[in-house]
């Protein structure tokens, strides 16, 4: 094994009341791909931002290439060879690839842009690492995968040898992920050190040499992913045994109901069916969502993609947020005496903590906010004798229902979606996570450039074929 590229020793960082990092230890070897895994809010991004000089640790030390360092700003970290590719790319669409790459590499404002030299260097790098790009097109014309290449070239151009990548595969189609991994291996073989922040354990197993697991702001383990099963890694990440979801679909005959729940221009959703929409983001999902919203009736629920902007008023209490979509079910006089018990019912049934409907939404964690939205949308005042208020709406539109939630909340939400189906209701599931679709959907429709290009029945589900269709390739 080669030397140590960098080391974090007992790094702690506090934001207000929250201890984001508590005695974090990390050791990364030169020329390795090291995964940083953990759930949202586990402190992995904070640790990486400290490493890049965006934040400063309260205590503990950073050692890079056997020297103790403390960066005043990201600039110095970059100068010492540590660079980060952010989840949201730092590229200006109206500028060319070339301009985006050379930005900020010269300190003197009035110096001319050295086109020839810089070009030569970029072309050499892109050939060497297999990152083919046209330098003269505007970045906005590139696919997301190509934009990512620009970001990586940007770092290589600055002679970065420790690359930190934040959730790099979140925006890529399965095909792009494969070629992206190829690029990472190239980089590794040339002696670059790569830190990969991710929550996708399958990818960790596929590519990482080592992995450090974060939980509740601490580093709980350093493992060799090759020796661990995905389930074992997940349990380390969550800190307890996972229950898993029960799906009784497999024990049941495939029965197709002819009752149409909702009829869109391009397809229908039947009773007792989960229709999944697959596709790389921005390939027409918005159109389908908008079409669905137009056909919405009183008996339909909606889990929007951007929960914080579209489903919750962050500054209002959960009680008020409950009324936001449910006020129609009560009389014109909204009496807290009558309604509050129902809100409490949602909170306790969906295990939302703290169990206080008068607290404003902002004070709840992301997972709890999410669970509240799910709970609210599945709630409807029962009009029959069963008094069961959680029969759920006849039709549910779920867009990226588990984005940004921890594993427990994810299992919970998946279970609820499956229950909807078992009750004979219809669900339209729009998700960019193929695993989620494979797990839940009865049918998957693949979107590419605004059109449905392929349909898969559950018996035909095949990750490679669906992935290929998502990238616009035909599968035969």
């Amino acid at each position, binding site marked *: 094994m080669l030397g140590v590229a960098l080391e974090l020793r007992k790094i702690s960082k506090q934001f207000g009341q929250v201890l984001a990092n508590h005695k974090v230890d990390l050791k990364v070897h030169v020329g390795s791909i090291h995964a940083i895994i953990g759930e949202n809010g586990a402190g992995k991004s904070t640790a990486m931002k400290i490493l890049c000089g965006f934040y400063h640790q309260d205590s503990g030390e950073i050692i890079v290439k056997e020297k103790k360092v403390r960066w005043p700003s990201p600039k110095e970290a970059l100068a010492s060879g540590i660079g980060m590719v*952010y989840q949201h790319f730092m*590229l*200006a669409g109206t500028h060319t690839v070339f301009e985006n790459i*050379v930005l*900020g590499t010269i300190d003197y*404002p009035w110096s001319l*842009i050295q086109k020839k030299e810089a070009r030569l260097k970029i072309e050499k790098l892109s050939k060497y690492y297999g990152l083919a790009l046209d330098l003269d097109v505007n970045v906005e014309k590139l696919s997301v995968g190509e934009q990512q290449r620009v970001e990586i070239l940007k770092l290589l151009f600055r002679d970065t040898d420790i690359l930190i990548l934040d959730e790099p595969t979140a925006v890529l189609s399965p095909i792009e992920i494969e070629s992206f991994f190829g690029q990472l291996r190239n980089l590794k073989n040339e002696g670059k050190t790569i830190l990969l922040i991710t929550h996708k354990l399958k990818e960790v197993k596929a590519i990482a040499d080592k992995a450090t697991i974060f939980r509740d702001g601490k580093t709980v383990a350093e493992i060799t992913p090759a020796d661990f099963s995905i389930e074992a890694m997940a349990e380390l990440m969550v800190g307890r045994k996972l229950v898993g979801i029960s799906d009784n679909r497999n024990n049941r005959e495939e029965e197709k109901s002819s009752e149409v729940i909702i009829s869109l221009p391009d397809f229908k959703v039947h009773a007792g069916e989960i229709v999944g929409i697959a596709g790389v983001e921005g390939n027409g999902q918005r159109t389908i969502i908008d079409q669905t919203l137009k056909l919405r009736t009183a008996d339909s629920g909606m889990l929007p993609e951007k929960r914080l902007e579209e489903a919750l008023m962050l500054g209002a209490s959960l009680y008020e947020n409950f009324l936001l979509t449910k006020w129609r079910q009560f009389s014109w006089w909204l009496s807290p005496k009558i309604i509050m018990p129902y809100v409490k019912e949602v909170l306790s049934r969906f295990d939302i903590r703290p169990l206080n409907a008068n607290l404003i939404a902002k004070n709840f964690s992301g997972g709890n906010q999410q669970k509240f939205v799910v709970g609210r949308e599945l709630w409807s005042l029962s009009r029959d004798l069963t008094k069961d208020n959680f029969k759920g709406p006849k039709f549910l539109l779920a867009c990226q229902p588990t984005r940004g939630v921890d594993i427990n909340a994810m299992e919970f939400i998946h279970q609820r979606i499956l229950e909807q189906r078992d009750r004979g209701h219809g669900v339209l599931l729009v998700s960019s996570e193929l695993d989620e679709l494979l797990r839940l959907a009865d049918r998957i429709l693949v979107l590419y450039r605004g059109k449905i290009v392929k349909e898969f029945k559950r018996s035909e589900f095949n990750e490679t074929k669906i992935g290929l269709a998502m990238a616009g390739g035909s599968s035969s």
Partner: protein
Amino acid sequence: MILSWAMSILRVSTPLIFASLGGLMSERSGVINIALEGLMLIGAFTAAVVALMTHSPYLGLMAAIVAGALGGLFYAFCVLKLKANQIISGTAINLLAMGMIPLILKILYGSTGATPNLEMNERFLSFPLVLLVFICALIFALFKYTHLGLWISFSGEHPDALESAGISSDKIRWFALTCSGILASIGGASVSIYLSSGYSRNMIGGRGFMSLAAMILGRWRPKTTVLACLFFGLCDVIQMRLQSANLSIALPTQLIQIIPYLMTLIVLTGLVGKSIAPKALGK
């Protein structure tokens, strides 16, 4: 005949070109600048007063540059340091200039309307044109060939990208707004000590806003912006020639004077099409 038209167009476009390049500096860096009108007023007034006092148009211009820089810095202070709303602070500067100038005029010359007339030797004959060519070349080169130009542009398109490359977008904006103030002020000065002889009320007459319009028509690019200014200059020349021509039908002069403004409106609503403003403009 063609030469005389070309010269008049160039003359009347001069203040527009200075000011709209000023607006371009500001907006490309991501800051909306509707204070151009006020900054032009400040420039026109300062240049006229100092030229009167010192009998030198060059000193007048220098003073206008200083005043413009201060105006630009003040605007930068409002929107960058105090994080004030850009439209409101810009309007405030416009109103401030419109209110303060008559007051100072009254103190200096006992009249709120105008400064005394400048003698011929206190005015410019052609120097602003030379300066114009120089400034145009400088700004074209800035955006095309220099790192600074790239930084200004990134500051308007994606400030976070600039920050992550280790350059402070706030610093770039301070610089760009100061330049913007200077350029607008030179534009104003060229109205009072080049096109006319002295400052008079309503002298700028919306040229600041027209410069903004030209910049938008020019799609925030230096070359097309200059062309748009020349187009507005052409409208102005047509308007002036129509006024002095013996027309067979008696058109009210107001109707003729309206031409450049009408063209601004038509062009901005009809011809611009999809706007391609810097993405982080106003944020």
